[in-house]
């Protein structure tokens, strides 16, 4: 990971270029780049400029509202929050095993979510850069341009997403912000008619998902040198895996590897995630910086999401996606599996896996069962972890004897990737921007590095109450007259005199 460009020595002497807002990502963020007179890059930061207060205002609410309330964090992958909260509250209710129907309906909902979110990201947000070129004409570099130039590709993207949304509607009650998953199980299963309706198109969805994998593979083959090198950096990683080491996006233990691929922990029980993961805070971002405690705040940075999941699992438990995983890992001696743009390839392999999972579940009679709820011995707290489209998502709640939430902690996928995204944009800045005249096309390269992670910036800002701040008083001539800093404990101290 790159920390060298995090903070310039004399920022007041440098020119500032801002990409504000970063486009074609979920939520609002900006990138600032500080350059000297020779266009040499001295500082690059990805800032998250919006704020969420869910951990605070969920306090005092009854626990059964939580899965429905916290999913409002996001309109793109609310199912992930809906399910992570439900899983946490299953644990709080002392439920170790859901009924087969509840487990499979939740898995179906989650697979629908993965399918629609990955399709949205690849076709609507990322494909304009990949199909037209990184520095191509800005007027065409959008979904409308894709529709005009590649109508068949765009159509598949729209219909794949629509199908995923239908799976969500039938399992959760609504396409966005449903109520299907409740602490202890689900409130509905599929009717025979709903099952038949989804079965009609699922084979087409599997076929189109295979086409999508072929598209990104083809792009890698055509642009091998550029794609492999673009924003490349070595990174540790983390994901959930099933008991047999297979990819499991809904449930499992935590697996982590360092930058050399050495296992740091495996099948770790996520109910004590804080034993292995810490959260650092920095004065210039609302987003926290998680790290592996055993390696410290800098060496312990890691990345999550499709690239970590596809490269770190032992296999994918659906045949077509597993073949694609093997091909991805073997491609050009494994080069794509370490590339930042490898995220896109891994994401499409996961989309294929999700389509196959939906197909398998639609042929399982448990999804039309009627045994929906389980019970258990009530506990004081619960932790739920799920692999959301963008990576590992952690929900943690403590509930008092009156059934009110007294503490909530959410570590969302994009937060895990905070340092990795900053590193990627710094790498790209050094590769493409250092010492040259900056153009819009070059700045888009920075955004392409961010988009590879498919960040959801709206979900990811959680530093309430611990937010360190730096305040600078700047004179009319630009010199810094005074500076003060509030640290993560809320203590304010003066910084050395700059006058």
């Amino acid at each position, binding site marked *: 990971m790159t920390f060298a460009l995090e903070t310039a020595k004399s920022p007041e002497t440098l020119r500032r270029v801002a990409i504000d807002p970063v486009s074609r990502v979920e939520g609002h963020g900006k990138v600032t780049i500080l350059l000297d007179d020779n266009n040499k890059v001295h500082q690059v930061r990805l800032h998250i400029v919006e704020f969420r207060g869910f951990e605070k205002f969920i306090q005092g609410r*009854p626990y059964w509202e939580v899965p*429905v309330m916290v999913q409002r964090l996001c309109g793109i992958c609310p199912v992930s929050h809906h399910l992570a909260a439900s899983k946490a509250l299953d644990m709080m209710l002392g439920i170790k095993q859901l009924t087969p129907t509840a487990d499979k309906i939740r898995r179906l909902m989650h697979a629908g979510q993965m399918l629609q979110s990955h399709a949205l990201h690849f076709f609507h947000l990322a494909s304009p850069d990949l199909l037209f070129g990184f520095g191509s004409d800005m007027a065409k570099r959008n979904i409308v341009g894709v529709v005009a130039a590649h109508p068949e590709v765009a159509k598949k993207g729209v219909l794949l997403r629509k199908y995923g949304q239908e799976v969500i509607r039938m399992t959760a009650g609504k396409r966005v912000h449903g109520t299907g998953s409740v602490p202890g199980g689900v*409130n*509905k299963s599929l009717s025979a008619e709903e099952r038949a309706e989804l079965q009609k198109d699922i084979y087409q969805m599997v076929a189109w998902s295979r086409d999508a994998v072929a598209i990104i593979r083809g792009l890698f083959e055509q642009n091998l040198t550029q794609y492999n090198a673009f924003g490349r950096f070595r990174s540790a990683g983390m994901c959930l895996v099933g008991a047999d080491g297979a990819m499991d996006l809904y449930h499992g233990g935590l697996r982590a590897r360092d930058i050399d691929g050495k296992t740091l922990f495996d099948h770790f029980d996520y109910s004590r995630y804080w034993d292995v993961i810490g959260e650092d805070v920095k004065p210039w971002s609302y987003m926290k910086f998680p790290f592996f405690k055993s390696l410290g705040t800098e060496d312990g940075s890691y990345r999550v999401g499709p690239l970590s999941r596809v490269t770190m699992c032992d296999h994918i438990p659906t045949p077509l996606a597993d073949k694609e995983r093997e091909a991805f890992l073997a491609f050009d001696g494994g080069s794509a599996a370490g590339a930042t743009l490898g995220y896109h390839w891994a994401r499409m392999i996961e989309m294929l896996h999700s389509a196959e999972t939906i197909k398998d579940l639609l042929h399982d009679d448990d999804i039309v069962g009627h045994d929906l709820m389980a019970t258990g011995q009530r506990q004081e707290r619960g932790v739920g972890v799920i692999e959301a489209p963008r990576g590992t998502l952690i929900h943690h709640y403590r509930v008092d004897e009156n*059934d009110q939430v007294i503490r909530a902690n959410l570590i969302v996928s994009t937060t895990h990737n905070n340092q990795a995204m900053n590193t990627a944009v710094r790498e790209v800045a050094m590769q493409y921007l250092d010492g040259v005249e900056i153009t819009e096309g070059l700045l888009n390269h920075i955004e392409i590095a961010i988009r590879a992670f498919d960040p959801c910036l709206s979900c990811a800002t959680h530093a309430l109450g611990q937010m360190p701040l730096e305040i600078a008083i700047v004179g009319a001539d630009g010199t810094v007259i005074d500076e003060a800093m509030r640290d993560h404990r809320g203590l304010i101290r003066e910084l050395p005199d700059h006058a």
Partner: protein
Amino acid sequence: MNETNTFLLDGEEIPFTPGQSIIQAATEHGIYIPHLCWHPEFKAHGSCKICTVKVNGRFGSSCTMAAQAGMNVENRTSELDDKRRTLLQMYFVEGNHFCPSCEKSGNCSLQATAYELKMVSPHFDMFYPDRAVDASHPDILLDFNRCIMCSLCVTASREVDGKNVFSMGGRGLLGRRIHISSESGKLADTDFALTDRAASICPVGVILPKRKGFAVPIGERKYDKLPINLQVSEETP
């Protein structure tokens, strides 16, 4: 039936029994007059003003005004529905009504009435009052954020349950509220029970059974199936 015991409601002749209010006669005849604080089981409270109609050209509460032979009552006119919508908007901004995460959503009279009257925004600035949640009772949660001061819980507890668990007190927009009749002010210190009539009377989401959230899926809730104006005879919870 005495043929003189009728009145006109939006041009339709409605029979009534002497002593009935306008809303009672209309309800018996299957006609919906929008309302919140009135309930067919109890004496009218006359506080919400949503049931305001025009009788012979003058405004009046249809829940407190006795039906009279020959009166001409206007109900679902655009003039009256506009005023009702404004009143509803005031109800929404005075409390903290977050339908998306409310268990009562789909079964809520306030929400259903707002849909019926085509309220699409709160229009006024939100008050965001600081109201308490009383989670002390083992079986029942009280979330006063959603209270519209209809007083149905006060009446039901007093008249049906014989307990006087609730009372209304205080002055002013932010001071007036439902009080719990116990020394601590907590529901846990009363003899309130889930089987009380008052426990199921709340038209909004203040009084709800604990540990039961979203058990009924979207699409299968009371007002998901039919709008409130078509459920006049089934209104009693």
